[in-house]
């Protein structure tokens, strides 16, 4: 099994409080890895470390290594734009850019370096179709993206995330704000595209984790308690904390 992301001794501090403690995990390539754990355990922070969105928060101090293709993303010489483009991001709530539906995707294409109107337009349609949105919006491509429903917006964000042509998809509770139908679509989409992408999904919903995970990282209070394949994790957990979490003791 090939490893796509290798995290070594990752520590994150916010001032004096430590948010992440000595994280050491390996995320396998072309699989769905679920980061599971109760709210506030540091899942989002861990995800944001991976594409260096932590840079936006001057109060966060990050140490350790995250290796992607054997390169440490925290190296001073790392090309952050390139790094981020190698990962599509799907956040908890959809944040469409303040532009038209069409331009939301065209903008991602432009940043990726796709030139030429025709080429762009073909790709925009293609990504909209991949996100199962094309039929619904094809007559209103020039309307502001904010007019779409939340479910549609999240699919637009998925299309936009795919449009940067990433190898990795980072999704932070991507379905928690969505209706059941849109949620199911996203889950199924991940299964479908898995052969081509390394997918990391954050969730605190056990059911969702069971449904989609190939691999699980279970976190509690800023530490990784247990990690491994989904079957192993759910059938045969090793740690006491994992067992009690799976039995629903934490809620």
């Amino acid at each position: 099994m090939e490893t796509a992301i290798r995290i070594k001794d990752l520590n994150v501090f916010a001032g004096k409080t430590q948010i992440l403690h000595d994280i050491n995990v390996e995320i396998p390539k072309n699989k769905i890895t679920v980061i599971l754990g109760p709210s506030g355990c540091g899942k989002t922070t861990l995800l944001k470390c991976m594409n260096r969105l932590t840079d936006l928060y001057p109060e966060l101090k990050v140490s350790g290594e995250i290796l992607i293709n054997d390169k440490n993303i925290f190296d001073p010489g790392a090309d952050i734009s390139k790094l981020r483009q190698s990962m599509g991001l799907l956040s908890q709530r959809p944040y469409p850019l303040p532009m038209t539906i069409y331009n939301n995707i065209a903008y991602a294409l432009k940043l990726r370096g796709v030139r030429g109107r025709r080429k762009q337009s073909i790709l925009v349609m293609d990504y909209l179709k991949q996100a199962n949105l094309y039929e619904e919006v094809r007559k209103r491509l020039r309307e502001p993206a904010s007019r779409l429903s939340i479910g549609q917006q999240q699919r637009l964000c998925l299309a936009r995330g795919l449009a940067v042509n990433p190898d990795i998809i980072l999704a932070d509770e991507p379905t928690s704000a969505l209706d059941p139908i849109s949620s199911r679509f996203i889950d199924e989409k991940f299964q479908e595209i898995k052969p081509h992408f390394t997918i990391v999904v954050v969730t605190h919903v056990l059911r969702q984790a069971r449904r989609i995970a190939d691999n699980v990282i279970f976190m509690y209070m800023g530490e990784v308690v247990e990690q491994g394949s989904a079957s192993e994790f759910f059938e045969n957990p090793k740690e006491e904390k994992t067992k009690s979490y799976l039995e629903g003791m934490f809620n």
Partner: protein
Amino acid sequence: MYLLNRQQRHVVNYSWMLFSLLIIAFLPFMLFGGLYFKSFLLLKTHTLKDLIFLHSWHPSRGEFGFYPFIVGSIWVTLLAILISTPICLLTAINVTQYAKKRFLRIMHPVIDILAGIPSVVYGVWGILVIVPFISRYLGPWFGVQSMGYSILAGAFVLSVMIIPFILNIMIEIFRTIPTELKEATLSLGATKWQMVKHVLLRKALPGIIASVGFGLARAFGETMAVLMVVGNVIKVPHSVFDPGYTLPALIANNYGEVLSIPQYDSALMFAALLLLAVSLFFNLLMHFFIARYNKY
């Protein structure tokens, strides 16, 4: 205990609230009505077109051309907005997106202090600094002879005065753009500057327009500071180095003085009516633009 029972007190409270609401809702109309009524004496003998477009201002001969005042007001206001808007925009972007958080904390009290300075003080500063600067350096540099008391001086002083108001709103607008939107943009591989240019500015556009409109309304009505440096010469200015006269200054300089001239009183009321109408116009314009750009 109480004079009225609970139900009655409720009714009384409610009717008071309704009454206050109505007063406030009708205030603009009452102002308008009052001013219109008071300027009626002038409007009876002069057409609106003449009042607005004629250049000659000789109250003793019954000539009331407001054109020089209107042009003076518009020049001073637009120039002031032109100067302060880019400054405020760059400052707001810098303070909210680039500078350390500490800066924003220092910025707020500074802005509040600037906003609280009485306009006379700005006027004095204009006379002591801006006026000589224009007559000695800026004018000669452009090859123009200027006393310093000019449209430009008024615009400079005014632009400094409205900066705190515009800046305050702009900072608030950029500060409240959700971090997640920034994260979404950066995650596509945008640089920070691309994010500011393509996403944040567009997101902030309705708010930016509103802040400029707010500044415009304030600038147009500002009286004292402008009056002190603009020169108060009743002539249509031909360059920004010429002196001028503004509508608020016309009212402030003359109200309550020359009552012996018939219609003069009424003309000043008409000036006030014009001011009110123009600020109302700015207001509507802003609402239009905000509605137009708020769809994203």
